[in-house]
């Protein structure tokens, strides 16, 4: 029992990291730019495909392809914000609701575009380190899990430092906390939100690559990933980067613990129940006052 628990907790925790990095951009976009980007995971799946092709066509590991993908996805996010979202924001009463429909449409377009480009066949990423493992006592740590977790730590850490230490980051935070005040103090709201949005989409690329290390994917996978994102964001609090990190880990831990002590079939029910309770206790997410 102890071995099972230790093993499940370890792998649950590492998976939680992947869920956190998949979700952090969604949370940012919602919190800072008020865009409910339902297509977030479609971007992640796109990144998973690009990583897959980089490996299978040119032998470039997805992790090495990431530095090229990041600016590309950032620009994609900037373009999306400039072309689609600002135009909508000018006319919308409630940007969150309008963008939900808008990005749902975008998700449909992207999913079926990928279907045309890469067929519906499911894909499995096989990297040089796919089968590597690390032994810590009796517990075995899978290298892809560890790498996905590392990606999460680096990405969320970098975002956090950016928000705390740089001028642009402080501006982003100001826009999140006090949009009016931020505007009055001379912050260019459009510019800041666009940049924040670009960063959010760029993190989707990291999340997609992290997830593709752990899971199979096909164009329709983005919808099931989106459910994870919703769970993480609600628990962590909308807009909170550290909240997302913490929530991802907690969800991973809950899955790890519950699958040892209760029948697997009831896991999702336990997870849902616990999340509802946590949410009622902390109605604004874990880390918010």
């Amino acid at each position, binding site marked *: 029992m102890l071995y099972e628990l230790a093993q499940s907790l370890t792998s649950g925790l590492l998976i939680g990291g992947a869920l956190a990095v998949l979700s952090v951009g969604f949370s940012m976009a919602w919190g800072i730019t008020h865009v409910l980007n339902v297509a977030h995971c479609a971007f992640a799946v796109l990144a998973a495909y690009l990583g897959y092709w980089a490996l299978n066509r040119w032998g470039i590991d997805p992790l090495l392809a990431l530095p090229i993908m990041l600016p590309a996805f950032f620009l994609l996010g900037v373009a999306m914000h400039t072309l689609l979202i600002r135009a909508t924001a000018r006319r919308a009463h409630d940007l*969150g609701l*309008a963008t939900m429909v808008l990005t749902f449409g975008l998700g*449909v*377009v992207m999913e079926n575009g990928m279907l045309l480009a890469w067929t519906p066949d499911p894909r499995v990423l096989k990297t040089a380190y796919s089968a590597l493992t690390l032994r810590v006592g009796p517990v075995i740590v899978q290298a892809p899990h560890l790498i996905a977790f590392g990606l999460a730590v680096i990405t969320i850490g970098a975002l956090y430092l950016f928000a705390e230490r740089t001028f642009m980051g402080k501006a982003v935070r100001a826009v999140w906390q006090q949009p009016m005040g931020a505007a009055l103090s001379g912050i260019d709201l459009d510019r800041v939100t666009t940049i924040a949005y670009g960063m959010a989409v760029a993190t989707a690329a990291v999340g997609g690559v992290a997830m593709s290390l752990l899971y199979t994917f096909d164009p329709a996978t983005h919808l099931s990933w989106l459910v994870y994102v919703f769970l993480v*964001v609600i628990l962590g609090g909308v807009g909170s980067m550290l909240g997302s990190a913490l929530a991802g880990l907690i969800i991973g831990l809950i899955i790890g613990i519950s699958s040892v002590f209760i029948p697997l079939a*009831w896991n*999702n029910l336990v997870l*849902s129940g616990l999340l509802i309770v946590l949410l*009622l206790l902390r109605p604004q997410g874990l880390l918010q006052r």
Partner: protein
Amino acid sequence: MRRGALRSFGLPAPDALIGIGVVLALAAVPLAGPGTYLLGFLFTIFMYGALAGSWNIIGGYAGYLSFGHAAFFGLGAYTTALLLFYSGWSPFLTLPIAGALAALFAALVGYPCLRLRGPYFSLVTLILGLAMYSLTLNLPFTQGASGLFLPFLRVDIYTSHVIFYEIMLGLLTIVTAVLRQITRTKMGVGLTAIREDEDAAGTLGVNATRLKLQAFMLSAFLTGLVGGVYSYYKSYLDPSFVFATSISITIALMALFGGRLAWYGPLVGAVVLSIVNEMLTTQAPPQTARIVFGALLIIVIMFLPDGLISIIQRRLPAFVLRRAKQAAARDEIIGNR
């Protein structure tokens, strides 16, 4: 409130007259002998219209965006289905039970959950939908993942289509009438106040907690009714469909696409999206059809973020708008007393 309702029935506004005419015309459609496909397709449109309308009471009027209405839909569907399966009771008779159970469930979960604001409410309802799916899958008496096969209605296929068509039309009419009526009563005013500024609404004497709960229960009740009819119509149901998150998202999408601020918005959204989707499915290659559908959502929302009806509203003849506004204003004043 009651006087306002009476007044508007005594002196029907033009929109109500048009509505009654349309309903009567639609009710007569089966007389013209359309194929079962058309009846089935219209049934689906009515169903989504009724679902989007029910959703709109809490999601549109009150601004509490539920992502978990499949929980109520599935609860209604499984209630009538299980009563038919085990006791042989006709779903047409047990329909009120389906609605009542959904409303009861809404009361139980609504009381704590409606304290949550904005996105947090949306997401807790999403989890509720997932939890109901998981529960149904694992309860001993639901037949779990294998699903439930129900006996057919004992009439020929065309008659059965007509019966379901008329019943769903009836439900849609009820939902739409309720939706319209709410806008003319104190409840509608209260819900609008909650949507615009909940804290301010409290200071104006609106009992927000009670009103939200009422709206949530009413919304769940109507959704449960629709689910109760649907399971019998389909005669096979399994948890993965009736509790699907995609149902919750689809009906919210239809309401938002049509326009959530007017009573006919969700209906417009359901009708337009259903028809466009059907046309694309039958006329274009599969992936292209979906891409065009997605692009259409993007384009329409970019230009009409408040929904399709903002274009209709601009095009209505001036006198219709004026009379509707007068009627609404009059009812609001009476209702507020």
